[in-house]
């Protein structure tokens, strides 16, 4: 390999769980000969957020005006931008609300003053072009390795466009939706977690976000849930948890309830 590949890992508003997940990987040692870490505060105190990099990993949701500027700067300085984790890719649970910012602010901070300009939490993609996404809360080690490894050799990683149900079947779990009527979001949720929750008999809450490319059939799944006795509100609430910013969700679910008295 010729020149070292420069990478950066940047954090917006988040729990730092994504970084932690990756910073602890033994495999990272393999990177040393080929990679130069320009910015990764968790690994390197002398990091700088403004140096040019080949690959920028961003975790966290855009939640302040300052972060809007930061992501724009990262974009300018990076050849490839990868959004990492549920907050960066979907806005995270903190973005799952209809309430105005002032009300949210009061509930959490009261009258306290801070030195930043708060905003409602949003996915990174709402502000800059994101080239690739690593999903999950926290994201999977395997996905990170795959992405970084593939980018290192100058190839492009594949996106996951199939649902959790695939992995659930590959592992031979019983289906909690079918057997217990649990509102499992597996059919609309992006795979990659190896169907972790159904493996323990727990219905998927969709933490990896809905499958993209318009193949998350919120409407068809809402129909199944409706037949199992769930109300429109219950269905919406469950599906919104990790998909608050999905523009299709509401409309598709509502369609199933059209003409139905509640």
């Amino acid at each position, binding site marked *: 390999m010729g020149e070292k590949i420069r990478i950066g890992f940047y954090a917006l508003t988040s729990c730092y769980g994504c970084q932690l997940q990756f910073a602890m990987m033994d495999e990272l040692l393999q990177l040393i000969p080929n990679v130069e870490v320009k910015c990764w505060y968790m690994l390197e105190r002398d990091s700088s957020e403004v140096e040019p990099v080949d690959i920028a990993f961003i975790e966290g949701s855009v939640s302040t005006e300052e972060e809007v500027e930061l992501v724009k700067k990262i974009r300018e300085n990076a050849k490839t931008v990868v959004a990492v984790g549920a907050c960066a890719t979907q806005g995270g649970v903190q973005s799952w609300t209809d309430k105005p910012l002032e009300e949210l602010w009061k509930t959490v901070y009261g009258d306290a003053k801070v030195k930043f300009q708060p905003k409602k939490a949003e996915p990174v993609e709402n502000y800059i072009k994101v080239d690739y996404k690593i999903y999950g809360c926290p994201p999977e080690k395997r996905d990170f390795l*795959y992405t970084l*490894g593939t980018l290192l050799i100058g190839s492009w990683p594949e996106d996951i466009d199939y649902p959790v149900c695939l992995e659930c079947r590959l592992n031979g779990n019983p289906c909690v939706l079918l057997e217990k009527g649990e509102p499992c979001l597996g059919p609309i949720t992006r795979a990659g977690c190896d169907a972790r929750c159904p493996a323990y008999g727990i219905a998927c809450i969709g933490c990896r976000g809905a499958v993209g490319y318009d193949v998350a059939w919120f409407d068809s799944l809402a129909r199944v849930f409706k037949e199992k006795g769930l109300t429109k509100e219950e269905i919406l609430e469950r599906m919104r948890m990790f998909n608050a910013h999905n523009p299709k969700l509401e409309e598709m679910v509502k369609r199933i309830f059209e003409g139905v008295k509640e």
Partner: protein
Amino acid sequence: MRYVKLPKENTYTFLERLKEWGKLHAPVKISEKFYDFREIDDVRKVEFHYTRTIMPPKKFFFKPREKLFEFNIRKAEYRETIEDVEPFVIFGVHACDIFGLKILDTIYLDELPDKYYKVRREKGIIIGISCMPDEYCFCNLRETDFADDGFDLFLHELPDGWLVRVGTPTGHRIVDKNIKLFEEVTTEDICAFREFERKRSEAFKYHEDWSDLRYLLELEMEHPMWDEESEKCLACGICNTTCPTCRCYEVQDIVNLDGETGYRERRWDSCQFRSHGLVAGNHNFRPTKKARFMNRYLCKNAYNEKLGISYCVGCGRCTAFCPAGISFVRNLRVILGLEEKTCPSEITEEIPKRGFAYVQNLRGDGL
């Protein structure tokens, strides 16, 4: 064919003895309603009267996920990672699933054999078992309800034991090695076998002729059923991943962080997924959910020339395990015109009055 009887009281001893031939797998209850083939430690956990396993027995031969080879980019080398397979026994395979494996053989063994499938197929001992159909079974309509081959031993239930058909030299050896466990088949046993088979064939839900089906599916592309049913579909792919004859897979190369070494992995795929029809240039030859939905129906009802049957063996899994409650059988019967009338009842001059496309209850009725 050789026939012996395994008296009921010897069943568990026989299962214990099977372990001498390899790791034993058999159907067990994995949850309230589901069964699956699992490795057997305690033979008393084996279910002899299970309905269907959530995963088909193909999982033992065509692994849900497997590493194909390791590579080194810098050295431009690769090394196939074909497992050293120990012999193993799968006990309790229903006739439809034996046909399922025979179908996979036509794909993965006959021409350009798949090495990974082949090593396992050579080491797997198959012990079939008789069954009573439930509401989802339709192997009778697929002519896969009775296996002529594809098993080493086949156990048919008798009131006081099992009538065993011996299908292969391995089957002979298993019987010979344990000859003290077996008895000769008596006239009563034959009567009991006949009685079981009679009851079984009556127990199937449908008794009708499906021979036109694959052509009608092709002719009825505009039928409203396709829209109505694909609309309900979740595109979860469960109908493919539980099917004993689905054989599509997807591969992925995983590169290590040294930027040099890595491996290729394959996993089961489903044609209900977007990427199944995705090709270079971002074109998709099955761009809609409906197109994907239709594809499965056509694929499963296509004609397997080697075996002279359809690719669907009638196991009922794709209906029983569909979380959206979509009934494959019902939808096929809609196309056949058996659920509701498909064609105008008053046939005009232009439309031919006879011809397979309009057949309702032919077979001589009213001719």
